């Protein structure tokens, strides 16, 4: 079965994205890391990551890198989401539901304000 979408579509997407990137100032990438070990997955990390990806689509966020990581030894705080803004320390959030993830994207990733009530000590 052939793909319904063509790679030409993707190449067009690429060209448009590159044009947009050239217009923007190069402010560096913002990094979002989601814990995807067994405990994280069982605690709902996939739904949390899904909410993050949906926000990237919805808010048209171009400068984000999403990574997954294995178990980081904070099981009772899973799902764990870490945010690293350019030239800033890594902030770790715990027990992050999809709703909390959306809030973290809006406040921290977009506006630069740490959501202190969800933050955990690391």
């Amino acid at each position, binding site marked *: *079965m052939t*793909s*319904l*979408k063509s*790679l030409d*579509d*993707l*190449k067009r*997407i*690429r060209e*448009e*994205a*590159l044009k947009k990137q050239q217009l923007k100032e190069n402010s560096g990438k913002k990094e979002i890391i*989601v814990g*995807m*070990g*067994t*405990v994280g*997955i*069982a605690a709902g990390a*996939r*739904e949390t*990551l*899904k909410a993050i*990806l949906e926000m*990237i*689509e919805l808010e*048209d*966020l*171009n400068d*984000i*890198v*999403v*990574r*997954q990581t*294995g178990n980081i030894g904070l099981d009772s705080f899973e799902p764990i989401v870490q945010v690293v803004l350019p030239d800033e320390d890594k902030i770790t959030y715990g027990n992050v539901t999809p709703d909390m993830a959306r809030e973290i994207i809006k406040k921290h990733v977009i506006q630069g304000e740490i959501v202190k009530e969800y933050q955990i000590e690391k």
Partner: protein
Amino acid sequence: MREIALHILDIAENSITAGADQVIIQINEDLKNDLLQINILDNGKGMDADTVEKITDPFITSRTTRKVGLGIPFFKAAAEACDGCFNIESQPGVGTDVSVSFKHSHIDRMPLGNLTSTFLSLLIGAPDIHWVFEHKVNGNTFIFDDQPLKEALDGLALTEPAVLKYIRETFEEGINTLYHADQITLDPIS
């Protein structure tokens, strides 16, 4: 975990941890033989026979020594409760094949769940791995190989919003088409 897709995610995470640079995920729904077959194949560092035995037994795997999936014994138990079986073939330095089967119509079988979400998590979260996803339903096949896509993107991030949308829709449409290819009813219970 209440979805097979979540278990697949968990197994594939082990492949990432094992340093694989290629992971193939195969799902075969064969209603004629009432079989649901899942294979996860990687070229990671592999395991010796002792380790394979340890990780599949929940009473031997201790909390402090585990490096790979606590989820494996649960997935195994779930398959075996559905007249299925669970098998790991692994060779140090070569890779690991995990194969799991379920009786498709078994009343206790978990739903497949959100495969798109599982696959996006893997693809986006571990972009350096070559991912191949192959889903068959009664002989119809949807294959998603991320290599041509990454070549076309030529370094542009997968998290670019339009790219994310493209991949998500490709997946949703591909899987959907499988189920509507010849008007089969997938879940005979509902």
